[in-house]
């Protein structure tokens, strides 16, 4: 109910459309809509393979869009992910805390600042879709390893595979932050009465890991092939989530204050209760690590733990995972506060939750990722007429609108927003992101732009759409001529003479047909299988023995500490 | 699109009648027909038959009464070329071939004149090529006389007469010594086409400048620039003044205005000043005045 009340109106308002990545996901979905079994997308980077990014949420968007259009389909899939998150948090929290605290944790997930931040500001559909699947899988893994239930094994494996099909990084890092604490919990719970032999523990863990590993390898086979044959050679591109949030407080607000909100007030409780209660310690350590990595460059931990991946990944997802790991503690804290202070606690918690959610939602409006509110329809129409789409184009000063433009036009661009998918040497050699925002990447970004304009003939790049006059000197001195203007002269069209028409790039990265077939069937198939398997009737699950008593016993101690 | 459809129809018609050709008789056809003219084909026998006529970009099918001539009105066959006629009745198939020639009277000219802009006084610098067509846009392959005339004000008109070969005629003309627009006309029969050739001044001849000191500056000015035929060089042409003094140089590129280029450079005793435009060098001045 809370999800319907809070998020449904916001999604129907199309709030995520202003986020960083929403249009990116819609662009990928639009390709699946028209070329379900051909992951080669010619619209960006003169052609790139969509097998470089797990496809599940985007394929669902494409599928649903046949009924309600791409934008609404995106909102529908995102909404489903938020609903699943509440369920997943409840089930995950139930491993650690009692039913009442788990219910409150699930309720808190609806108001989670990091979730709203990812949905409305970052637009990370894949992350927000994969996490709930993963959280739902973990209790099944717990049951399988502790009790050896094959039904749980099947359900867990199916959900893990679907989670990987949604976002591979979630599975990879989720194992570190989520799965290892759950495995530790299995061992700790063993001391409480119900015993599982060490051999069974190891065997079941290995079986689960092997089967899930094999399933993920198969379902995402084209992804692994692309990764192995064409490893990401992109020079690291700066991202503000790697900043030190104290030295760069503006990014601290964006990547710490907004995602955490009033959750920061729970940090002392998390540290104390997580340390005092033995069975909560694995969860605390998982949270702590994710929390530190999520702080980006504020601590050296991210760089030390992730190595080169620190310069490739963005850090806000770690804060998201940290807040998810914090939710069982939050549920526990809320339950105790309500027990002690009744209505005053309810009012205070409601206020804190609402304010946290409101701040994250409002943040996307007051500091929108895509501050430039303009339409790209005129540019798309210009490209789509008079054979202009026989040549490639690039935009300058369009920000995140390039994904929307790519959805609307038939023409191909040498730019794009999927940095790991690009293979053009002019782009990968420089630490600049999208060409359209070159100037924000300093010398590296401008060098990339210079290089690609210099090789315009090579890539049939004939049109440049300029919305920022900053770039005009480069075009003017580089031999480009202004040929038209659009949108009340706010967009100028520049052209280069003698550029040959674009031809299909016969790149070695182009996936063969069998990979297209796999990509079009297995990821979506894995999610459908997961749905079917989860619907199998469950045998009654017993609450982990000793949880209630342990917590009750140690609550008293920590309660004093908190008060 | 229609042309393609017609060609396909011709192929289909030919394919339909080919099996019958082995047992065919011969149609009595006129050997030469002018495109668009009326003509008739006599037939013998009695009963109904179907006549197929297939040619370049055109095919006809007619139900005819044997024993009566088949009349074709003016304009029925308008495309020049080789035609196949097949008259098919229940009992027999007669075939024949005939040619449709372009009409002999020119009705349209396609005239290509190159270049559209060239320096004055250039020998054989202008090329004119003409394709002669009849009123049905058939290329008239029969030799036809084409008159080319290049006329420019205050100069004698150049005229050439060329006979077409395979429908085309071409010629070369000299550009006039005087600048200005020349009218280049091609005429065949009563049809003519005209193009305008812009004759512009050529490279300057005898680039010369003078210098005059005004304060601490030297005012440089060229004489009015003319090409070797005496035409004033086009305004906007870039003239470069270069002053060399004590191992350093000062250059200024200025456009001509009213055939004269003017610039100012620092007045330095002992300076050498030169002038150039394009690849043409002018005179050099050694300035010995007081700085």
């Amino acid at each position, binding site marked *: 109910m809370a999800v319907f009340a809070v998020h449904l109106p916001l999604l129907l308002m199309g709030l995520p459309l202003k986020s960083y990545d929403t249009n990116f996901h819609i662009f990928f979905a639009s390709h699946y809509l028209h070329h379900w079994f051909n992951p080669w997308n010619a619209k960006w980077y003169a052609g790139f393979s969509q097998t470089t990014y797990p496809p599940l949420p985007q394929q669902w968007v494409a599928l649903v869009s046949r009924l309600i259009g791409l934008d609404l389909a995106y909102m529908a899939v995102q909404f489903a992910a938020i609903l699943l998150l509440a369920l997943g948090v409840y089930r995950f929290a139930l491993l650690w805390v009692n039913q009442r605290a788990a219910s409150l944790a699930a309720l808190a997930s609806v108001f989670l600042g990091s979730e709203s931040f990812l949905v409305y500001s970052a637009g990370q559909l894949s992350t927000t879709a994969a996490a709930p699947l993963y959280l739902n899988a973990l209790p099944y893994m717990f049951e399988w390893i502790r009790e050896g239930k094959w039904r749980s094994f099947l359900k867990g494996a199916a959900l893990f595979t679907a989670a990987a099909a949604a976002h591979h990084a979630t599975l990879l890092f989720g194992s570190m932050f989520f799965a290892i604490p759950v495995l530790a919990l299995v061992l700790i719970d063993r001391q409480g009465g119900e015993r599982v032999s060490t051999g069974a523990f190891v065997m079941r863990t290995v079986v689960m890991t092997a089967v899930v590993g094999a399933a993920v390898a198969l379902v995402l086979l084209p992804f692994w092939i692309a990764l192995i044959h064409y490893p990401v050679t992109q020079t690291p591109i700066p991202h503000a989530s790697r900043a030190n949030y104290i030295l760069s407080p503006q990014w601290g607000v964006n990547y710490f204050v907004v995602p955490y909100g009033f959750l920061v007030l729970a940090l002392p409780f998390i540290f*104390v209760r997580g340390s005092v209660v033995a069975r909560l310690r694995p969860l*605390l350590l998982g949270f702590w690590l994710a929390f530190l990595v999520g702080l980006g460059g504020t601590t050296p931990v991210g760089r030390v733990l992730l190595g080169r991946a620190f310069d490739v990944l963005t850090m806000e997802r770690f804060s998201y995972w940290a807040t998810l790991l914090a939710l069982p503690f939050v549920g526990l804290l809320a339950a105790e506060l309500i027990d002690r202070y009744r209505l005053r606690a309810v009012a205070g918690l409601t206020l804190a939750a609402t304010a946290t959610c409101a701040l994250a939602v409002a943040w996307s409006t007051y500091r929108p990722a895509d501050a430039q509110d303009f339409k790209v329809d005129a540019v798309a129409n210009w490209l789509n007429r008079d054979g202009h789409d026989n040549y490639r184009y690039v935009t300058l000063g369009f920000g995140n609108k390039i994904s929307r433009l790519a959805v609307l036009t038939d023409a191909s661009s040498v730019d794009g927003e999927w940095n790991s998918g690009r293979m053009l040497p002019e782009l990968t050699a420089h630490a600049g992101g999208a060409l359209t925002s070159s100037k924000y990447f300093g010398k590296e970004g401008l060098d990339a732009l210079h290089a690609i304009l210099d090789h315009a003939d090579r890539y049939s790049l004939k049109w440049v759409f300029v919305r920022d006059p900053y770039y005009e000197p480069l075009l003017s001195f580089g031999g480009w001529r202004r040929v038209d203007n659009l949108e009340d002269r706010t967009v100028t069209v520049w052209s280069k003479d003698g550029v040959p028409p674009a031809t299909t790039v016969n790149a070695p990265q182009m996936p063969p047909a069998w990979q297209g077939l796999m990509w079009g069937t297995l990821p979506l198939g894995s999610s459908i299988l997961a749905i079917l398997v989860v619907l199998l009737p469950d045998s009654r699950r017993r609450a982990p023995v000793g949880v209630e008593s342990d917590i009750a016993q140690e609550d008293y101690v920590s309660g004093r500490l908190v008060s | 699109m229609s042309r393609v459809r017609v060609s396909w129809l011709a192929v289909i018609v030919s394919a339909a009648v080919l099996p019958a050709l082995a047992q065919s008789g011969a149609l009595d056809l006129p050997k030469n027909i002018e495109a668009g003219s009326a003509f008739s084909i006599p037939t013998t026998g009695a009963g109904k038959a179907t006549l197929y006529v297939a040619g370049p970009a055109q095919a006809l099918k007619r139900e005819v009464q044997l024993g009566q001539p088949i009349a074709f009105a003016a304009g029925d066959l308008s495309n020049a070329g080789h035609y196949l006629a097949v008259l098919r009745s229940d009992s027999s198939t007669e075939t024949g071939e005939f040619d449709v020639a372009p009409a002999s009277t020119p009705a349209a000219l396609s005239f290509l004149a190159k270049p559209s802009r060239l320096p004055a006084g250039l020998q054989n610098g202008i090329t004119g090529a003409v394709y002669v067509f009849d009123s049905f846009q058939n290329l008239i392959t029969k030799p036809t006389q084409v008159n080319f005339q290049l006329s420019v004000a205050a100069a004698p008109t150049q005229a050439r007469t060329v006979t077409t070969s395979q429908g085309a005629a071409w010629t070369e003309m000299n550009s006039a010594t005087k600048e200005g627009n020349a009218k280049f006309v091609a005429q065949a029969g009563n049809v003519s086409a005209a193009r305008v050739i812009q004759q512009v*001044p050529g490279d300057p001849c005898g680039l010369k400048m003078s210098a005059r000191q005004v304060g601490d500056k030297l005012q440089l000015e060229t004489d009015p620039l003319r090409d070797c035929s005496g035409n004033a060089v086009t305004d906007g042409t870039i003239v470069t003044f270069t002053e060399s003094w004590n191992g350093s140089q000062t250059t200024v590129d200025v456009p001509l205005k009213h055939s004269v280029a003017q610039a100012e450079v620092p007045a330095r005793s002992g300076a050498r000043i030169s002038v150039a435009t394009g690849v043409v060098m002018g005179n050099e001045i050694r300035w010995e005045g007081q700085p």
Partner: protein
Amino acid sequence: MGGRFLALFLVAATIALVVVGTLWPVPAAAAYAGMSPSGIMHSPSTPESAVDNLAIAIGHQDWPKAYSELSNKAEFTEQDFLHDLTGSYPSLRTYAILDTYQVQPLHVSDSDAQVRLRMRWSTVVGTFLDTRNLQVVRNGDQWAPVWPIVKETRVPPQVIAVNYLRWDVIYRGPADDWGAQDVEAPHVRIVDMHPVERAAGVVVLGELLNEDVVPAYVSVKATLLAKNGSAIATEDSFDKISHLLLPKQVTPFLITFPNVSLSEVDSIHMDPMSNLVAASADPVVEIQNQKLSPAPDAIFGGDLVNQSGQIVNIAHVLGTFYDQSGQLVWVADQYIDRALLPQTPVSFSMPVPEDLARKVSTERAVVATYSSGGFQ
């Protein structure tokens, strides 16, 4: 008891890690904080650290902070300081970002020091270097730099009559019949072409002449052909050429083929392209006092004087160098970081490779210009 220790340990470790991450930030975080490679801003206890702090503030575009670091701020306003760094009129400096800087002490005594600050600014057309020799004076135990202010000339309000030519073009319409003539592309000709081998690869130099009576928008493409006739690489002149050529105007061009050796090349196919464009003869830029200082450290320099009324926001100087036989030896270029105001000299200087500079007998410069919102 163990639990409480764990809590204390985790909290202490978190605080310690945050302190470490703040005092010695990882490179990505340092870059976002705009720090020097050595870390955070330090107390100006040495001449170098005082200049370092100034450079950090300039890099942040924190002009009040940078201005406050100066010891001679009474001599000029913060606005003057800002205009010195970013220009009074829109120019390359206006939107430049400080890419890197170097602080080099030249001389130090107890009371003052000389420190060289080399700032490399990044702009849309490349980088430019701004070197300032700063005097740094001691005030107690602190040091503060003396900024050598360069006040840009302001153009007084006035009316400047401009009556240079301009060309407009009317192209054929879509309804014109086949065979009808169109305005013809300008006739251009490569009057010189010369490949040289450099460390970066093969460089093709040349000069292009507009031999027509109309303006031409030009570019040059070159294809290196191997001995078997196959194409090795195709590149074009991009910005190493003046694209707008008025009648009888000549531009040098330079085309670079990275990672190609001249020994692989059998022949070169040159493809000059020209288009008829609307153009204006304005602005006219005089190049004064061109001089090539001899090798080593050969520099070709001079002054640009805008003889028109229109402000030139960005000027691009192309230098052409010839040997004694008049053969082209090298082409160099430089973007001017300050706007060209009417009748106000602005200097330029571009380095010439030492080995080539020794061969140079004569040189010549041409200027391409860009005026924002101006005629294209």
